């Protein structure tokens, strides 16, 4: 078993000499154009800070009402959870579970894993599970769909606004803030750097 100083492009398998891009550079594969690495300023510190912010914001975004609907004098509040419950009550278990996972569980796991990994790297604490966490984080990433949910809220509101009065709750503002924070979190996390650090901590 031999490790090598070479790297390979994940999308076309071209054997490459590893470059040492600095902050502001983008390393692309010369053959297929894949973005190999894009170093970020203070990647570990920022990921750590942003995941704490995300963990704080995820509570109001989940617990407070996102939008309220006024109809015949009644107001009905909608949260992330109430959408799941409504689908469950209509026997659409598959869809309910999918919405539950992609709008509540996966974003939460994403933030918790980012927090755990960046905290260990920040304090230089080795942990046997670091590689596992990092692997889960990479696989979960595309299944957390908060930004798609936001678009769903907008479309639903436009549809309802023609016939009824809508009220935006505090939860919606927290949700938008959470959206921004998770977006920044994903872009500040430099996977190449994180894996290198995890490798160094193992030795």
């Amino acid at each position, binding site marked *: 078993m031999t490790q090598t100083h070479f790297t390979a492009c994940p*999308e076309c398998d071209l054997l490459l000499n590893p470059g040492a891009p600095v902050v502001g550079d983008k390393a692309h594969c010369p053959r297929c154009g894949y973005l190999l690495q894009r170093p970020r300023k203070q990647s570990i510190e920022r990921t750590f800070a942003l995941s704490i912010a995300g963990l704080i914001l995820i509570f109001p975004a989940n617990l407070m009402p996102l939008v309220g609907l006024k109809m*015949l004098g009644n107001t*009905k509040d909608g949260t992330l959870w109430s*959408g799941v419950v409504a689908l469950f009550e209509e026997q659409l278990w598959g869809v309910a579970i999918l919405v539950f996972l992609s709008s509540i569980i996966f974003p939460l796991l994403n933030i918790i894993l980012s927090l755990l990994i960046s905290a260990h790297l920040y304090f230089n604490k080795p942990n046997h599970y670091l*590689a596992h966490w*990092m692997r889960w984080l990479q696989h979960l990433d595309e299944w957390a769909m908060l930004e798609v949910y936001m*678009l769903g809220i907008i479309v639903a509101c436009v*549809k309802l606004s023609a016939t009824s009065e809508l009220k935006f709750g505090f939860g919606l503002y927290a949700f938008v803030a959470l959206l921004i924070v998770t977006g920044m979190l994903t872009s500040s996390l430099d996977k190449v750097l994180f*894996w290198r650090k995890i490798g160094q901590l193992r030795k």
Partner: protein
Amino acid sequence: MKAKKTALTQGFIRCHDCGCLSKQAGKNRLCPLCGGRLHPRVPNSFQRTAALLLSAFCLYIPANIFPIMTITSLGVGEPHTIIGGIMALINGNMVPIALLVLVASILVPLLKLLGISLLLLNVHYRWQGRAKKWTILYRIIAFVGRWSMLDIFMISILVSLVDMGDVAQVIAGPAATAFAAVVVLTMFAAKNFDPRLLWDNQR
């Protein structure tokens, strides 16, 4: 064009998770950095992608012919298919939102189904040339995949907000499950497709 050296032809395997490149003999190879199982290419990439794609094609039909939701107002129910919902938005003078839904729930799933089929045909018949363009098609498909969930999230919000018994109610229909399954299956199909196969066939 001169054939370039790939990691595979030089006997190296790139870890799918952490990107570590190593040279190993024998079966059951594990990554020296993260401990994950090593495969030179995604195992059975072609067969898995084809199977998932075929299931998605089958479910695409019920997703479009059955009602995705039924809007009841004053006791009169009105079932909507995906296309029906877009027509209702156009009739209600909400053309920009109608376009958004059209892109997310009709064009994107179609693009994914046809695009992945083309990628599979490319790999099977070893089409020569323009591998970079095909790789870009793969990247677009992998990127847009999650945005089709828009319709599902919108329904989940509508179902939970509009629930006033006989006066006004939105009930999700059987097409919602089929459509959600199409989205998930095509996402898995894109994840299982290995773009390196496009490059392996180039001479």
